[in-house]
Each structure stands twice: as structure tokens, then as C-alpha cells.
């Protein structure tokens, strides 16, 4: 029986090559998307699932509520490390570590210096109690007991000591920042499963006393929170997270200090389950370069896969029910030979299964290519090797089964319902099969495709708008050069600036802090007191010398610049001025604002500009000089405007690099163009846009394939009618119109439904942006016209050929 089914299924697929190809391609597109996305989802959802008792592990984090807004900090204040052990109950284990950023490290025995090494933490044995590593040498009990000890992972050990066997690495010493030494006291295996705990170097916590940040790491003061101070706990079996949380709340209340009351700030310690760590956007993980796993993007991806699969299924259902005529005879015969309805449905499901299987097989191969093509979109660790997991096999089988039922059940049901006596006479098709479901499905296909098209256009428009709108300061031909951050003095930088200033290719130059738009902004509380009230306002602080505003072409509306680079005088922006209750720029000039408990003079007002991406609005901001120069300079960036592009920037850039290398030998040369920085603000949007491009292309392709199939089918059936009409004198255009009209209506209806849906969805999306592009009518019109033209072109491809045929021929073959 089965063999008979497979045979007939195969012959059917083979005899209807075109329809089979349309079906397989449509399904394969959806399946490939589903496979790739499935792999990504699998990858992202299997981080840190292997820890022993991981369901009882939490990170202690800190929530701040301030009048300016709420902040989440993934770190804790250092005394918490002791409090969780000594003051709280119900905690089985805890591990404290400090994410240690240093400028360089090297093996004492080697010359090779590692610049800005990453993944180093300062911690204790308790870390290894909580997170189980496999020890190659040394033991967790003794390895981090004393100061100046370090445990390496196998990977890191091989980087430091490429020529030594692991056994010989023990006892070797490593230098940090050239002044701290640590002896290798243990080697562990790297985690072989996916984990966000990817640290490679574990320095004993006691070593922290020798570092510049010992206050931050081991302080007893409850006042400061650094997100590098990380605390993990494992709660005991009999207590609950809620119990611990209430103790944490009580603890936060115990440690309210005067500043918090004064500024109306509230700090609450909180727990974050280990399972939430990977998708966390608020508290932050330790990812240095990897873009955060974004649950929302993953969910959108899953939806895209589902849509593509649905579109493929719709093609299948449409083409198969449309072809029912051809199969009616076979069904009639089978029924008279004794086949039951159920057996027929099984037969058709079998055929669908075979087709889906073929599609799935080609998809597995396609996915391997897709993984390469979408390289920059897919997380680094996702590759074809993940396909070997049983989970993937389950996904493939599951999808094949679901698709088989989704696509095959309805056509099977329709076909098996045929009455044999009528099916054999070929009667039923005209009366029973009006194809209204097919119309509904075709319309839904085009709704999906059309929504994607509109969304793509509008998202691109928003990106274009954001990248090209006036930020209020100069962005073209502006570049900035960052200097080594471990150099705390300004002297070399002044020399650097002076020498670059003399280059003929540089038209303006300034020494300062960050550029006007950046992700990194320092903030400070500003207080303006009058007789009867006090305005407290958070202010962003920019540092720059007297030329800073000139480089960026930012106008001063009133007042003047600070007298020199080191005097603490401030220029405030318009928004800041208004926040303190002034409406006239002249009025605030000469007033004092309290900053860090010191009265500071406002000497000028500058025009507003957009400090960050256009997602956020303009916030209060002040510009000052290099106010902390004695301790460490804030002037760490050289900003410059390059001359005429025609005269050749590359020469100028090479000269700048030469000067830089002379002043900072051995340091990396990091020159960035501002427009690139601004484009980077919109990385997320760019990713959405490229995702939408693909989703749109594929959904339009699948829908059009389906449309082509239906048009071919109906046109073939109307061969005779076309012949007769032609003989009676119908023109080419009339005939083409006649054939396309019905489908045209469906595409149009799809558009009418898609338009409000798309409008609503995009309107919501745009709400996240402080500055939005217009939802212009032409976006909607253009996408509609595009779709209609495309559909017409596809339909005419077939209808024209039919219409052009010699009527004698078509009438005879009938």
C-alpha cells in the first residue's frame, strides 16, 4: 500500500514538474528560514544551561530610582559581598568578582605584550565553588588564596605560553600593567558549552589591594556601585527568591545615605535569575564586542519564519485544490475500487509529505549557504555544526510533520469528499469548487507580502532620515583621533594637537573630550538655587578647548567661551537653560549653578544639537574645559576638520598617523570619521532593515510564485474560451485584461487590507523615536503600485503566451 502511494506520489510530482517546483521552492524558502532561525534560537537559548543547580543561581543587581529616571546596574556595592554571607539567610553560596580592565599584560618570561587584554576578573575560590570548572592543574581550594596568584584557562595559558607544555605553565609569572605580578597557580578547562562566563584569567581578589582601583573593589563604603563588581549567589534548596528579595529590600533600606535623601534617589538591591542573563538588556552582561542577544529580534525572526512557512503552505493548498479537476477521475476510480475517505486523505498527506521532505532536504543544504551569506547577522557561534544536534533533527522532523498536515490536510479533505459517480463524469468541479478559500488564501498572501513591502520602505526612509537630518553640528569631513587612555597627562596631547594643526590638509582642530554625539557621556547633577526654590537637573558634560565649538560649527547664542582651557566656566545648551527656568539666553549668563557642591559660573549659551541618536531627544548639557587636568586630563581626543576632499585625505591621514606614532610609539592609531560614528548609532535599525529586505524579497517571491501557478492553471482551463473569443474578434489587450482581472482584484484587496495594518504597525514602531520621518502617502502608493505592476507582469507572462497562441490550435486540442 505504502509503496503504491509513494509511487503514485512520485509520478504525480514528476508529471507536474512546474507545480511541484513552485511548491518545493516555496516550502524550501520557508523551511530554510526556519532552520537558520531555529539554529539561532537554539543557540541563544542554550547559554549557561549546564551549571549545577543553575535554577537556584542569581545575580545580585542594583536598581536606582531618581527623579531623572530609573537606572539598572548589573553590579553591586562592594560591601554586599560580605553582607550576603553574614547578614542574609537562605543563601548557600556566593561568589564575588570584579571585572578587571587593564591596559596591558604579558608573561614575565616573554616579550610579547597583550594590549587591553579582556576577560580578566579578580575573584576568590568561591567563584569556582559556584561555577564548576575542570581543573587541569592546581586546585580551587588553594589557587586563589594568596595575593598575586592567577588561574588561567587552557586557551589563555596557550596564548601566554605558546611554547610551554601546560604542566610547565604552573609557577610562571604574568605582569599586569607592568607593575603587578601574579604567579600561575592553576589551570582550568574552558567551558565547552555556551556560557556568558567566558573569563580566561582569574586573579586572586587579594591582589586588588595593589591596583589603582582597590577602593572600588574592596571598599567598605555602601555609597558606590560599579557595574564591574559582580555578585552571584546560589540560594539554598528550601528558600525562595522572594524571601531573599525581601531581605535585600530591607538591606537597601538600612543603607540609605544622606545624598540619596537629598537628591530623592532610591536604591534597591534585586535578584536576576541566571537564565535571564543572556537576554538581558538592562543590567548588561560581559559582552565586549558581541552584540547583545536580543529577545525581540529573535521573536521577530521567529515570526518571519512562520510567515514564510505559511506563505509556502498557502501556495501548496492553492495549487493542489486548483488542480483537483485533474485528480477527480483518479479519486472517483479509487473510491469505486473500495478506497475509504481516510485512505485517500492518507494518500494525499503522503504525497504532501514526500514534497515537504524534498523541500526540507534542499533546505538543509540551502541553510548551510544561508549561514554563510547572513554571516554578520548571525551570532558568531552559530554554524553548521549545530545541525548535528538532536534538537535540530527534532526541529526538521517537527516542521515536516506540521507542514505536511498544514498543507496537505485541506486539499486531501476536499479531494476525498468527491462523490465518485459525479467525479467520474467530471461534473462536480464547476459546481462545488468555487475556490473561495483559494481567494482568501491568495489575499492573505498578498497582505503579508504587502505589509513587508511597506515596512521595508518606511524603515529605510526612517534610517535615511536619521542619517541625513541636521544634527545641529558639523558631521562631514570631521574626524576624531583617540589617544591612549592610560596616559593621564595632557602634555603629549598638546604636542600632538600642535603638530597636526600645522598640517596643510587640516583646516580646523580642537582638543577635547568626546565628540558632541556619542554613546559615552558623563553626567553630573546641577543645582540652581533661587530665594524660594531649588532646581536639580542632571546635566551631560562635554569637555573641549576654545576651538571645540568652531570645529563642530556650533553657535553661541549669548555670552562667551570660557576664558581658558582649565578654568571651570560653563556653556549651557538651550534645553539646559530652559530646564533651569530661563527663557532668554542672556538671562542665564552670569548665573551660578552648583556642581559637586561648588558654585560654577555659566558664561554662555550654545545652540541645541542632538547629542545622541535621533531615538532620544535633546537633553540638558554643559560644555567646559579641562577641569580636572591636575589629576587626569579630560582632553583625550583630537577633533579635526579635514580640508578639501579633492586634495586628498589619505595623505593627510598618513601624516597624522606618522605624528601619532612618533608621540605614542607602539600604540594603536584609532581615527574615526564622525559620520561613521553616527551611522553606527543606527546599527540596530540597519539590521532590522536588512532583515526586512530579505523577508520582503522572499515573501514577495513566494506569493508571486503562487500567483503564477494559479494563473497558469486557470489560463490553461480557459484555453477554449480564449480561442473562441479570439475568433470572435477580441483584441490582445481585452483578452489579457479578461484573464488578469480576477487575480488583479485579489491583489488589490490584499493591498487595501495591508495598508491600515502596515500603517498601524509602523506608527507604533516610530513611537520609539524622538525624531520621526513622515509616514508619507507616497510610501503606501509606491508599494501598492509596485506590487500591482509586479503581479501584472507575472500574470501577463503566462496570459500573453496563451492569448498569442493560434486559436485554431487551442480549439482543436480541446
Amino acid at each position, binding site marked *: *500500500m505504502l509503496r*503504491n502511494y509513494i*509511487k*503514485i506520489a512520485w*509520478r*504525480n510530482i514528476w*508529471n507536474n514538474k512546474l507545480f511541484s517546483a513552485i511548491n518545493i521552492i516555496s516550502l524550501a524558502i520557508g523551511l530554510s528560514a526556519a532552520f537558520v532561525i531555529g539554529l539561532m534560537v537554539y543557540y541563544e537559548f542554550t547559554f549557561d544551561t549546564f551549571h549545577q543547580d543553575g535554577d537556584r543561581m542569581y545575580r545580585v543587581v542594583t536598581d536606582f530610582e531618581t527623579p531623572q529616571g530609573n537606572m539598572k546596574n548589573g553590579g553591586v556595592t562592594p560591601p554586599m559581598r560580605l553582607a550576603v554571607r553574614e547578614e542574609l539567610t537562605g543563601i548557600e553560596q556566593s561568589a564575588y568578582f570584579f571585572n578587571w580592565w587593564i591596559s596591558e599584560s604579558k608573561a614575565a618570561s616573554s616579550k610579547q605584550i597583550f594590549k587591553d587584554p579582556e576577560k580578566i576578573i579578580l575573584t576568590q575560590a568561591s567563584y569556582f565553588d559556584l561555577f564548576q570548572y575542570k581543573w587541569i592543574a592546581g586546585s580551587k581550594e588553594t589557587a586563589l588564596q594568596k595575593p598575586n596568584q592567577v588561574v588561567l584557562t587552557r586557551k589563555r595559558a596557550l596564548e601566554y605560553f605558546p611554547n610551554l607544555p601546560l604542566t610547565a605553565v604552573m609557577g610562571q609569572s604574568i605582569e599586569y600593567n607592568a607593575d603587578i605580578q601574579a604567579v600561575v597557580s592553576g589551570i582550568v578547562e574552558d567551558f565547552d558549552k555556551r556560557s556568558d562566563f567566558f573569563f580566561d584569567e582569574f586573579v586572586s581578589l587579594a591582589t586588588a589591594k595593589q591596583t589603582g582601583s582597590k577602593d572600588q573593589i574592596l571598599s567598605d563604603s555602601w555609597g558606590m556601585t560599579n557595574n564591574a563588581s559582580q555578585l552571584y549567589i546560589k540560594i539554598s534548596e528550601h528558600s525562595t527568591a522572594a524571601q531573599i528579595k525581601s531581605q535585600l529590600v530591607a538591606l537597601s533600606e538600612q543603607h540609605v545615605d544622606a545624598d540619596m535623601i537629598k537628591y530623592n534617589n532610591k536604591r534597591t538591591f534585586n535578584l536576576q535569575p541566571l537564565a535571564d542573563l543572556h537576554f538581558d538588556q538592562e543590567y548588561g552582561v560581559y559582552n565586549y564586542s558581541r552584540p547583545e542577544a536580543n529577545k525581540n529580534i529573535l521573536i521577530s525572526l521567529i515570526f518571519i519564519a512562520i510567515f514564510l512557512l505559511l506563505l509556502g503552505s498557502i501556495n501548496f493548498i492553492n495549487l493542489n485544490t486548483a488542480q483537483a479537476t485533474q485528480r477527480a*477521475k*483518479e479519486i*472517483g*476510480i*479509487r*473510491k*469505486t*475500487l*473500495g*478506497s*475509504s475517505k481516510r*485512505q485517500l486523505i492518507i494518500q494525499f498527506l503522503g504525497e504532501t509529505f514526500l514534497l515537504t521532505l524534498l523541500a526540507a532536504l534542499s533546505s538543509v543544504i540551502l541553510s548551510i549557504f544561508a549561514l554563510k551569506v547572513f554571516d554578520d547577522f548571525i551570532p558568531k557561534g552559530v554554524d553548521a555544526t549545530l545541525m548535528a544536534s538532536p534538537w535540530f533533527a527534532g526541529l526538521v522532523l517537527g516542521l515536516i510533520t506540521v507542514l505536511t498536515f498544514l498543507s496537505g490536510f485541506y486539499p486531501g479533505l476536499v479531494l476525498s469528499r468527491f*462523490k*465518485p*459517480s459525479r467525479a*467520474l463524469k467530471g461534473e462536480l468541479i464547476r459546481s462545488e469548487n468555487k475556490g473561495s478559500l483559494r481567494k482568501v488564501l491568495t489575499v492573505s498572501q498578498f497582505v503579508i507580502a504587502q505589509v513587508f513591502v511597506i515596512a521595508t520602505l518606511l524603515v529605510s526612509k526612517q534610517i535615511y532620515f536619521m542619517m541625513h537630518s541636521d544634527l545641529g553640528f558639523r558631521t562631514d569631513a570631521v574626524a576624531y583621533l583617540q589617544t591612549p587612555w592610560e596616559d593621564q597627562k595632557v602634555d603629549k596631547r598638546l604636542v600632538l594637537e600642535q603638530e597636526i594643526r600645522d598640517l596643510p590638509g587640516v583646516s580646523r582642530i580642537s582638543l577635547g573630550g568626546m565628540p558632541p554625539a556619542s554613546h559615552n557621556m558623563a553626567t553630573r547633577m546641577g543645582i540652581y538655587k533661587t530665594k524660594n526654590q531649588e532646581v536639580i537637573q542632571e546635566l551631560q558634560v562635554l569637555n573641549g578647548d576654545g576651538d571645540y565649538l568652531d570645529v563642530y560649527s556650533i553657535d553661541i547664542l549669548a555670552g562667551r567661551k570660557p576664558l581658558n582651557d582649565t578654568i571651570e566656566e560653563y556653556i549651557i545648551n538651550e534645553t539646559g537653560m530652559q530646564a533651569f527656568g530661563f527663557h532668554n539666553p542672556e538671562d542665564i549668563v552670569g548665573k551660578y549653578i552648583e556642581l559637586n557642591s561648588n558654585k560654577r559660573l555659566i558664561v554662555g549659551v550654545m545652540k541645541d544639537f542632538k547629542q545622541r541618536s535621533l531615538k532620544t531627544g535633546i537633553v540638558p548639557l554643559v560644555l567646559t574645559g579641562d577641569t580636572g587636568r591636575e589629576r587626569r586630563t579630560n582632553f583625550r581626543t583630537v577633533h579635526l576638520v579635514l580640508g578639501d576632499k579633492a586634495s586628498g585625505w589619505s595623505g593627510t591621514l598618513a601624516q597624522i598617523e606618522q605624528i601619532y606614532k612618533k608621540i605614542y610609539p607602539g600604540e594603536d592609531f584609532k581615527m574615526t570619521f564622525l559620520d561613521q560614528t553616527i551611522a553606527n548609532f543606527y546599527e540596530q535599525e540597519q539590521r532590522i532593515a536588512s532583515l526586512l529586505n530579505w523577508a520582503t524579497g522572499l515573501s514577495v517571491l513566494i506569493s508571486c510564485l503562487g500567483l503564477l501557478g494559479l494563473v497558469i492553471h486557470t489560463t490553461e482551463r480557459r484555453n477554449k474560451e480564449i480561442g473562441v473569443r479570439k475568433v470572435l474578434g477580441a483584441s490582445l489587450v481585452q483578452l489579457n485584461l479578461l484573464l488578469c482581472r480576477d487575480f488583479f482584484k485579489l491583489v488589490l484587496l490584499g493591498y487595501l487590507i495591508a495598508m491600515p495594518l502596515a500603517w498601524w504597525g509602523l506608527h507604533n514602531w516610530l513611537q520609539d523615536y524622538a525624531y520621526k520621518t513622515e509616514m508619507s502617502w507616497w510610501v503606501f502608493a509606491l508599494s501598492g503600485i509596485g506590487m500591482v505592476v509586479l503581479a501584472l507582469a507575472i500574470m501577463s507572462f503566462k496570459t500573453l503566451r496563451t492569448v498569442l497562441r493560434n486559436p485554431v490550435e487551442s480549439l482543436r486540442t480541446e
Partner: protein
Amino acid sequence: MLLQLNHIYKWVKQGGKRVFLLNDISLDVEEGEFISIMGPSGSGKSTLLNVIGMLDEFQEGEYIFNEEPVHSLKEKQRAKLYKEYIGFVFQAYHLIDELTVYENIETPLLYKNIKSSERKALVADMLDRFNIVGKKDLFPAQLSGGQQQLVGIARALIAKPKLILADEPTGNLNSKQGEEIMELFKELNQEGVTIIQATHSESNAAYGNRIIHLLDGSKQHQASN
């Protein structure tokens, strides 16, 4: 008695009026009979065969087949009944185009859940009997009309039915091929298979031992032999 029709009525509504396809048909068929149904186009021959074959329903009357009341059976039971006892032969052969001769003949056995080895033996017997062993791997399109009808009859016989219903079995064949088919029916009848055929042709009708004349859905009583 193999089957009995008592006052069968079948009609369709056309413009609010009943148009009778079968009008008060009563018929007794004994096992081993060979009955020819005659009448012009549209007289209800095919409809009557479809009713007897349980492919079509009727509005009024009783139908007893092999002591089972067909009119009150559910579709599933009816299907079981005709699967067991009835074979069909069609004017247009109605072979499945995608299956070979061998597979076409085998199909009814598949629906009766017969084991593979037994199926092989049965199909081989049938191919042998109709002398079409050499054609077993051909597709219907590769056969002449007469050959296709032979396959059709072989397929109808494979499940060893008690009753064969043949709707104009020779209608698409030339006279020589037609004669051969009728001789075959005669042979089968002599072996004990009950046959009911619908036909236009007097000479074919004469192969039967009873002729029923239909006109506008009613039985005519002018002749019987």
C-alpha cells in the same frame, strides 16, 4: 436472492419541479443472472447502475443487498459492502493513468488489506488469464481501447466480486473488440458471477438472460425473455 430494489425513486429539483431520474423501480436479481439494461441516452441506465453499485443515493424506496438493507446503512458500511461484493467496469475504462497495468489491477487488493505475497499471486493469475502478462509494466496510455477494457475487467474481477456492474463496457470499442468483451462476460457469468450491464446495442443485450428496458427513469414492460 442477491439483491432486491423496491420502489426506488430518485429525483433532482429543477426550477422548483422534481425531475425523476428513477421512477418507481423495482427489481429482483438472483445470483448467477446476466441482466442487460437497455434504453436511450438519459433514460437512467447509468443512474440505476450507480444506485445498485451504491455510488449514488436515492430519495425513496428500499434496497436490499445480500440481505442487508442498503438504504439504512451508513456510508462506511456501504463502502465495506461494495468493496467486498461489487466490481465496476466503465465505458471509459477509468484506469489510473499514473499506474501501470499491474498496479491498476492490484489496487483493489490494497484497499482490502491483502498481504503482498497473496496479491502477487492473484494479480499474476489475472494477467495470465487475460493474456496480458507482457503488458503488465505498460501505462494505460500505451494500450489500445480493447486492451484497456480488458485491464478494467481484470481489475473488476481481482477482488472476486459476486456482482459485476458494467456501464456500456463496449461503448468505446470497435465491434470486434466489443464482441470479445461480451464473450468474456458470458464466460464469467457461466462461472457464476452475476452481471448487470447497461447497453445501447441489441446484440450486446442479447448476451444477457434478462433485458430490462428503461425510459425516462421508468421500467417498460413490453418485453422480457
